[in-house]
């Protein structure tokens, strides 16, 4: 009996030791390694799904025209390994080919591709989708999956194409074997500038699955709610944009120019109503503007009014004049002596025609006298340092990134430290300085609105995509004054006279009852470091109606090849055509006089 008890005691110790080992192991799994196991368990029983947001629309200023929108597409993909493992590849390819109207061999070659997944057809029609869904429910299409894709569409293309830019899908590494095109990112233009507003936020959902990856419908948990992108209301007036586009296209052919561009800005707040550039396609490259923008050559995608830096020529003269007036170096009714020519450093500057021996200050602008403006410039350079002059030019709104809500653009060029004696004349005539057309337009807006600097911009408001209510107004109220009222009035009056009797006669719209203010320019083009003969840029800057300016219009023609090259001869008529069409077509339903405020 006692021997039994001794032996049994041994077993009690054995069981107690075994219990201790079990406790240790349990503690190890449930407490020490808890995080590790819990993570593994969670990743095994749950699946995450990402739902792409709809990218917001880009609208014209009246919300009526859609410039860019997103569309949900349904595409068909196949899991090639799954199909091959079921040994039904021929049968499935026959079904698919019949529904999708594709050759059987093509579908079969997709199934037998070496990749684990491949597209069969992108963007299938609703009827096809329904047929495929029916077959899927009956279990005859294993390994065939339907994918929701978001596609970007530009209904007005190629109108305003270079302003809007484009957005394309980006492949997220390791997320999807096929690579969806849905993860849209803006690459250029407004799509890039307003990407954060337009993009929206991905929805992330989590659900439980069983061992066979079948989802549990009741277990869907929202990790991040889906948020569609906001709509962007732009300042672009589609009618003006259309007129500008058509006229520029005609002018490009008529004048055999390398490029033409034009911009219309509202001087009261700097909204860009229309902005367009057309370049002649180089002869070696086929250019088809119907292709999507991302298929264009990079140089064709550039929006020249904001991108092209050029020497402005005579439309620069009002800037020198206003700087001189603001610094009281000249007086408004002063008489400036005139000579045949004037010498600056080693260069003799001639005028383009002969004038009387004394010119009134405003006649310098009206007749675009080179010698006259150089006299003003000489006074400026005699009394002020180069740094001061360059600072004044910057104060006038140059050398900054505009449009302000656009991707970074060239700032322009100004090198005061390299100025020499010749620069006194060259700068007065609008050389040795690089500006963009929209920077020039911003200056003329200040002339038109009484001296306030505007910030040209494209964005007008951010709208809620579901009900169209304004979420945020984008305000760019001009509040910095760059010139006094009297200076701006002086220049405006000179510009009106310029159109009436000066160089810009061909822009006259008096017969429609609309007074136009304008300034012409003809600049030589710099080719490979020297001014080439016979290569010019003709420009015209103007606004209308002159007494209550509603729009500032600038046009510029680069290297016209059809004979005439003066700004007054080709740029002013182009301005005239655009302005006339705007007055007749856009305001034909209300009396013209009312529009013009007469």
């Amino acid at each position, binding site marked *: 009996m006692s021997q*039994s008890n001794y032996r049994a005691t041994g077993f009690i110790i054995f069981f107690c030791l*075994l*219990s201790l080992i079990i406790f240790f*192991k349990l503690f190890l*799994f*449930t407490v020490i390694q808890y995080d590790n196991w819990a993570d*593994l*368990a969670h990743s095994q029983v749950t699946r995450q799904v990402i739902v792409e947001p709809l990218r917001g629309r880009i609208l014209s200023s009246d919300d009526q025209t859609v410039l860019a929108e997103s569309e949900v597409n349904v595409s068909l993909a196949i899991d090639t390994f799954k199909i091959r493992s079921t040994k039904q590849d021929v049968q499935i390819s026959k079904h698919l080919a019949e529904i999708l109207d594709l050759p059987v061999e093509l579908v079969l070659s997709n199934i037998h591709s070496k990749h684990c997944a491949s597209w069969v057809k992108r963007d299938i029609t609703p009827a096809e989708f329904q047929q495929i869904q029916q077959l899927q429910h009956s279990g005859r299409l294993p390994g065939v999956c339907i994918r929701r894709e978001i596609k970007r569409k530009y209904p007005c293309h190629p109108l305003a194409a270079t302003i809007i830019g484009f957005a394309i899908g980006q492949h997220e590494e390791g997320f999807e074997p096929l690579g969806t095109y849905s993860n849209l990112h803006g690459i250029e233009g407004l799509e890039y500038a307003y990407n954060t507003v337009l993009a929206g936020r991905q929805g992330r959902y989590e659900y439980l699955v069983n061992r066979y990856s079948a989802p549990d419908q009741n277990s869907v948990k929202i990790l991040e709610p889906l948020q569609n992108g906001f709509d962007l209301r732009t300042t672009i007036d589609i009618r003006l944009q259309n007129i500008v586009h058509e006229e520029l296209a005609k002018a490009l052919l008529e004048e055999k120019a390398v490029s033409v561009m034009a911009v219309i800005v509202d001087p009261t707040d700097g909204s860009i109503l229309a902005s367009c550039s057309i370049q002649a396609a180089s002869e070696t490259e086929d250019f088809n503007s119907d292709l999507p923008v991302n298929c264009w050559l990079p140089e064709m995608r550039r929006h020249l009014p904001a991108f092209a830096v050029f020497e402005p020529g005579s439309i620069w003269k009002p800037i020198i004049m206003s700087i001189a007036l603001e610094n009281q170096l000249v007086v408004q009714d002063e008489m400036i002596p005139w000579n045949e020519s004037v010498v600056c450093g080693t260069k003799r500057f001639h005028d383009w025609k002969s004038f009387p021996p004394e010119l009134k200050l405003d006649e310098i602008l009206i007749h675009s006298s080179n010698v006259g403006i150089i006299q003003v410039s000489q006074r400026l350079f005699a009394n002020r340092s180069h740094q001061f002059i360059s600072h004044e030019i910057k104060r006038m709104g140059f050398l900054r990134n505009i449009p302000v809500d656009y991707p970074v653009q060239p700032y322009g060029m100004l090198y005061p430290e390299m100025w020499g004696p010749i620069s006194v004349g060259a700068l007065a005539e609008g050389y040795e300085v690089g500006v963009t057309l929209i920077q020039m337009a911003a200056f003329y807006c200040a002339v038109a609105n009484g001296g306030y600097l505007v910030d040209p911009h494209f964005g007008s408001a951010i709208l809620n995509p579901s009900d169209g209510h304004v979420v945020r107004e984008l305000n760019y109220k001009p509040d910095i004054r760059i010139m006094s009222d009297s200076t701006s009035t002086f220049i405006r009056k000179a510009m009106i006279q310029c159109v009436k009797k000066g160089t810009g006669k061909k822009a006259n719209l008096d017969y429609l009852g609309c007074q136009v203010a304008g300034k012409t320019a003809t600049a030589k083009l710099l080719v490979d470091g020297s001014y080439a003969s016979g290569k010019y840029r003709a420009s015209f800057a103007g606004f209308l109606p002159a007494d209550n300016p509603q729009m500032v219009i600038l046009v510029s023609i680069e290297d016209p090849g059809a004979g005439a090259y003066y700004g007054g001869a080709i740029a002013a008529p182009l301005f005239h055509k655009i302005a006339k069409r705007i007055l007749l077509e856009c305001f034909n339903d209300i009396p013209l006089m009312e529009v013009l405020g007469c």
Partner: protein
Amino acid sequence: MLTVFRLVDPWILITLIAMLGLGLAAVLTASVSLNPNPFFYFFRQLLYVVIGIGMLLISACIDYRTYRFKTQYPFILAIVLLMAVYMFGNQSWLTLIGGFHIQPSEIAKIIIIVYLSYVMSFDRHGGYRFWRHSLPIMTTCGFLIVMTALQPDFGTALVMAFITVYLLFIGSMPLRHLMIPFVCVLPMICVVPFVFSHVHQRIDYFLLNWQMGLKPWQLGYHDYQMRLAMGSGGWFGKGFGNGIIKRSFLPASHTDSIFSVLVEEGGLVTGMAVVLLFLALFLLGERTARLMHDRFGAMLARGITFYVAIQGFLNIGVCLGIFPNTGVTLPLFSYGGSSMIVTLFTLGIFLNVSSQRRIVY
């Protein structure tokens, strides 16, 4: 009958009730997603428990000394049933006329306990002779074990072998006699993994547990899912019915892997409670044995509690990767009719033994 329950050790009853209650809850939560009707397995298990308690009441009322004189009949019955399985059955199951399935190896376990308790209870005054005493006992038991193993049901055979060795050891058989079957059987055991591929696979998976630097998901699927279920339980578990691994991922969630489900939903605390319940039953059996007047009762108490405890520890050890997979269920917890009824019947005998112990104040 009431007298029996008045005299029985109350701690045994408390332990049994706790185990049955916890077991029913475990079956309920582990089997909800196995059948379209979430209570299908639970109600069947409830039925088995009710039948089992009936059997327990019957066996608790039969004086344990009754089994002393008629051990040869059940023994023959066990052999006949095992032979029937061998000829008509499917693996270890035998289908009866009513559509019921019984597992004769479960019955063989209790028969071997009663038989060994009987033969080891003779007082041989230390005169154990190998040819006369030890060899016949070991041969008869070995015959049953080998028959069970050949069904093939190695898990039950292993438990039966453990019980046999334990009872022979406790019954004061000389150690040198016990060594001889070990030496004879060892080569046979070594051959088994090479003959039966599933045994080989189980041992392979078990050895993965001890391989250094192995990623968890490189374990065998069953092992990995049991670790996931237990590891994600934490101190207090996910709450009753909130387990997720048990839903379709964990194989045999309501039978062999029920301990993992308990730990997933009840945490470390519940897991330790289950282990302590089995240990308590074993210690109560030992306590009862030491208070018995006769050797037969003592042997019965030790054998029955050892049988329940070793099976429980084997199952839990398998879940935790301490032993290779044996296919042994957790007694009183796992779903299964034969096992539940037979175990409760056996524990009824233990209750009867306990009611006739010396009362020590």
